């Protein structure tokens, strides 16, 4: 709209949190995949039925064939084979499906894969450098911040967002800003401790 544009915080600082995994992906524009399946009766550029949808995940380009109704979560798990991202409620209530899109944490069950073409998607699989864990992953292990582990990938991705946004300044702040991630084992005290420790290390 204007020079007073919002939402344009420095992506450079995001990169420092995402220091692992996200190799500087090629900036080449991704061709829109929706033209391939446009029916005669539909307006130009309309996708009906399955079509190749280019998705950039953890720095790699994937082109699964997807119907428009496939969520980003299902595309990641069922089509691309990245099952680290978990499906809990599939309604945006539990946070197990949290991923980063262009460095921002979102719930992958609440968006369509076709809506995320051309964006940088980061899943839990994209965090570690080989055997070297992301500091948030290491902090979760170090603080025993999980029992069954099902919510953990979402907790970790959300914690990265929470720290990057600058909302890990106190235990109370961490609790509020991690409230989109539920843990049925109720490891909350240890999760808060892990986020606190990781925030200190990443500062």
């Amino acid at each position, binding site marked *: 709209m204007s020079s007073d544009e*919002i*939402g344009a915080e420095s992506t450079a600082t995001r990169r420092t949190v995402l220091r692992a995994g996200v190799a500087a992906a090629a900036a080449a524009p991704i061709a829109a995949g929706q033209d391939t399946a446009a029916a005669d009766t539909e307006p130009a550029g309309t*996708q009906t039925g399955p079509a190749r949808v280019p998705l950039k995940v953890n720095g790699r380009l994937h082109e699964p064939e997807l*119907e*428009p109704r496939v969520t980003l979560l299902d595309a990641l798990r069922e089509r691309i084979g990245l099952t680290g991202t978990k499906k809990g409620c599939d309604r*945006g209530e539990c946070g197990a499906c949290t991923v980063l899109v262009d460095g921002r944490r979102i719930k992958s069950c*609440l968006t369509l894969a076709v809506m995320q073409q051309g964006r940088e998607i980061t899943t839990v699989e994209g965090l570690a450098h080989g055997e070297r864990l992301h500091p948030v992953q290491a902090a979760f292990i170090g603080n025993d911040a999980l029992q069954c582990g099902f919510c953990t990938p979402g907790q970790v991705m959300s914690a990265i967002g929470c720290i990057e946004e600058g909302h890990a300044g106190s235990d109370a702040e961490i609790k509020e800003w991690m*409230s989109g*991630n539920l843990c049925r084992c109720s490891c909350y005290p240890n999760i808060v401790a892990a986020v606190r420790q990781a925030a200190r290390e990443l500062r």
Partner: protein
Amino acid sequence: MDDFAYTRPDRPQVAVALAARPGARFVAGGTDLLNLMKDGAEHHDHLIDINALPLSGLRKVEGRIEIGALSRMSDVAAHPAVREGLPVLSQALLAGASPQVRNMASMGGNLLQRTRCWYFRDAAMPCNKRSPGSGCPAIKGQNRRHAIVGGSEHCIAVHPSDLAVALTALGATVHTLSPRGARSIPMAGFYLSPGNTPHQETVLGQGELITRIDVPVTPLARGSRYVKLRERATFEFALVSVAALVRTQGGVVREAGLAFGGIAPRPWRPAAVEEALVGRPLDAAAIKAAGAALVRDAVPREHNAFKVALVQRALAEALGEFGGSR
């Protein structure tokens, strides 16, 4: 989810032309729409993705802040001009949903989210809002979360948006575009009362796109605040909420804007509440009179009568911040 066609236009005129066709619907953040479609509460043949439209961003102009409809809740809440000039707006946004959803959900979409009435969301149940004429199980059923004012014999669902409550108190204006052109709609006239057509929630027509929300920046707005009471500390819809703008001078209320959430099918701003305060000292008697005016016409149901007292206490809590004593 049933399958649908998908188009991502990059010009607003194209988007509204596409969306004017029967069965079409805009998608922005998708955070409510996808749930509605997964739950079978809504069916759409064609989603028009508006994220490529140039409708993001916030602009300060003389006397107001213009908020692009695609701006995300988190960005608007964190913007310095909003935090300083319109604290009630920032607080209401941050009181809603979760950090992830706030990163996704658009301002326009937030206003158009549907009620969390469990009968509406359950496609196996009757619901006059989802399936006109099928009945309202809430009126004699589980109605703890439902409206105590403004409902009808056809629907007592509450509107879930905290943002809408804040914008109503602030006297914001919604700008739209449709194939017939652009228009602006004051928040006070944006939502419809349920009456016997609870499926019609706003004055928007098919394919009419929210493009911008203008919010007046006034001395009154600068000291505003949002009070939200819910069943857990966070990440929950309001049982009751209050958006409060009050300006006092020498202990006397000079100006007030008060809107309420969680108690009505639309953001609730009864003139009688403000009239009970303006021109009077902000003391216990005035606060009590304002609360009484608020619930004078309340129709509590079996499980939600507690809201009658709770919303008055929330009002007292909100006014306490402006120097009022209970």
